[in-house]
């Protein structure tokens, strides 16, 4: 029993506010190092949150999961061929693999008698297994680690080589590429906002309006693949899915309109990134995991107390026995696009 107690104490370390909150920002070197980590976290959460909002309303949450697994063979091949993390081959390989995965899933769903979920499960697990095998076979002599791909290590981001353009040092490569992708995501979402909205919420209307629905779909898939590729080094292929889903689902407990949900990604990404950083600092565990834990906590808060369908208000309504409650909830469905 005493051994147990001792384990528990070391399992959750003592909370030292000075070490957690102050030390990381005490010297210039620390600020530069940790600042990069937090910036990367914010960029990842922001890009994933924006793309994820559309993914969630299109009922493609698990497609995000599938693509995030499906990019693995592309990454591995790019790495094996180039022998290093060259930026463009990596993006190219991963995007091709991700799109191929999504195309295979849709093809199976259409052409075979399989149920849609089974088609999805079969495809992405096969892609993933292929990627893992490639890494295990050829990754040994190259510097690539399957576990790092799986849950990422945002804490090592500042170690990456820095990228320079015309003699100007731009910063660590993952942060620069993430920044570019985030800007691309923001621009695409702003420019194609209407098209994305119409195709997400009313497919038939979009078709009658003559919108290129298939093109928009694959454009979104490409955006998704780009986001996943640029963030996998930080959070790994499995935790990307939470960065995609959590922001929009959490925001949905507070707002009903799509623009508000999209804007919500910004503060949430700050909360996830900074909160995750401090949590990981305290527990001395992986930062990406801690970021998702903070995201889960925010989600739990939203689920419990959110004004738009939170448990507490449901309970209150049930206690007061208001019959009008049902209507209020069904109105809220507008944002779900049913």
């Amino acid at each position, binding site marked *: 029993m005493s*051994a147990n107690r001792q*384990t*528990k104490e*070391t*399992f959750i370390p003592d909370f030292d506010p000075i070490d957690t909150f102050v030390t990381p920002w005490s010297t210039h070197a620390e600020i530069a190092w940790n600042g990069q980590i937090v910036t990367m976290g914010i960029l990842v959460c922001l890009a994933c949150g924006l793309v994820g909002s559309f993914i*969630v309303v299109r*009922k*493609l*949450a*698990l497609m*995000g*999961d599938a693509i995030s*697994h499906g990019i693995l063979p592309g990454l591995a091949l790019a790495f094996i061929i180039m022998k290093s993390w060259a930026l463009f081959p990596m993006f190219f390989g991963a995007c091709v693999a991700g799109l191929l995965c999504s195309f295979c899933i849709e093809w*199976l769903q259409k*052409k*075979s008698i*399989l*149920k849609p*979920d*089974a*088609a*999805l*499960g*079969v495809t992405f*697990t*096969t892609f*993933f*297994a*292929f990627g*893992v*095998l490639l890494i295990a*076979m*050829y990754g040994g002599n190259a510097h690539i680690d*399957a576990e790092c791909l*799986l*849950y990422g290590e945002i804490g090592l981001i500042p170690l990456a080589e820095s990228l320079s353009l015309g003699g100007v040092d731009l910063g660590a490569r993952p942060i620069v590429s993430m920044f570019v992708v985030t800007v691309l995501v923001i621009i695409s979402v702003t420019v194609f906002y209407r098209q994305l909205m119409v195709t997400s919420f009313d497919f038939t209307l979009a078709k009658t309006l003559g919108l290129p629905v298939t093109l928009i779909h694959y454009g979104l898939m490409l955006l998704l693949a780009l986001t996943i590729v640029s963030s996998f080094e930080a959070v790994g292929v*499995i*935790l990307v*899915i*939470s960065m995609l*889903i*959590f922001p929009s689902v959490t925001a*949905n407990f507070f707002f009903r309109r799509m623009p508000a949900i999209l804007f919500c990604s910004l503060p949430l990404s700050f909360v996830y990134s900074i909160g995750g950083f401090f949590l990981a600092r305290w*527990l*001395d*565990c*992986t930062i990406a*995991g*801690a*970021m*998702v*834990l903070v*995201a*889960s906590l925010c*989600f739990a808060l939203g*689920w419990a107390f959110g004004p738009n*369908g939170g448990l507490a208000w*449901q309970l209150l309504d049930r206690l007061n026995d208001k019959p009008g409650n049902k209507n209020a909830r069904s109105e809220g*469905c507008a944002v*779900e696009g049913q």
Partner: protein
Amino acid sequence: MKGHPHSKWSLPRPPLEWRVGISWIILFLCALPLQGEQISSQGDSILERSHRFLTLSDESVRMVLLGTILMGLSCGVMGGLVVTRRLSLFGDTLSHAVLPGVAVGFLWSQSKDSWAILVGATVAGFLGVALISLLRKTSRIRQDSALGLVLSGFYALGICMLTRIQKMEFGNQSGIDKYLFGQVVGLSSSDLWTMAFSCLLILTLTILLYKELLVAGFDSEYARSIGLPVDFLQYLLWLLLAFAVITSLQVVGVVLVSALLVIPAATASLITDKMRAILIWSAMLGCMAGATGAFLSFLGNQLPTGPIIVLVSAVFFLWALFFHPQNGLLFKWLAARNRNQRIALENTLKAVYQELESINFQEETTSVSQLAKRRRIGMPQAHRETDALVARQYATVHPVEDKLAAPPRPTLISLTPKGWGTACRIVRNHRLWELYLTNEARYAPDHVHDDAEKIEHVLGEETVRRIERILSNPKKDPHGKLIPSQQDIDRGFIA
């Protein structure tokens, strides 16, 4: 009818053993490149290694093989139950959600004790599933989002706990990170006993409660109405699924367990559509994939077993998808191509017949240009169609004998007896169906043509006889044209 597949319900025919054998050989060949990398460093050849594997002389080989087969069996059966209920991705979620439970079990026992981990993981898996249904009940979050939330949230918790454990003094040498990818070599005999126990439990309960699970899975309302404890069965299913997932974790790891749940079962559902057969096939495929994967990874020397098992089952899946005699896409595609070719031929023959009919069968030949005009196609296409007729001995062609005609002399077509018979049969089917629709189904005479265009190619001899009997052997169709009779076909001309 030659290219038509066998009847829908029968199991594959004898060549199955052949196909299995060929697949094994192909897999063996696939193993050669895998093996190529390390062959120089290792003294023994591929034949020696396969001999060592197949004779089961190594203790470790026996344990690995037993482990992978037990895993394939339990995952196959559970996968069959889960995939047919459209819950494939629940398996995925469950396999990620057990991770914190594994960590807690590990902390609790402070070792890689399989029982403590089993208990912890089962509880965590149950919590995950319960959270999904709670989310579905109390919020507007859709199923797929809820699955993703629980999957990644629990997984993150598990990862955080595992990294913590690895930093503690006893966690270092534990090899607990093997739960992420699995390491079949590390199987201990107590792990095997756990696997055997859970496999036995799964098999026994599935066989005993087969009917109940079937009814509850496919029609829960009906099951409730006949007094079955549907909720209890549902929880039992989750429990068994959790057992299957957890015991397989050590072999293939968290991420690939869901592959073993989904892929064999999906393959089975491509092969057959009877529940019992799906379960048996899925279990068999799981075992075969496990054994083959173990074999290949042994040949390949230290290759990870999990991904190879998954890829082997993916090969089985692709085989079923494309080459299965009844449902394979290749055969479906070939059958569709055959059918389209036959329909095109029959349409050409029908056009020739109608052309001959338009001149009251005064002559036995018609020209390709006439055919092109009637079929409303260009001359090259008409020539192609004529060539197809000639190739199948439905017709013969010869240039027009009139020496005075302009140089590209028109080609004349005349039907052979075989061609004449087929043409008459198609026209007869068409006109009989038109008459049937007008007389018996009360269609307007100008609405029946399109329908008859389609059905003329598929009416069987027996159906035609029945229609004739119903219509009391008619002579003319609703548009006043003669219907060729069996005697006309035999005689070779219309009387």
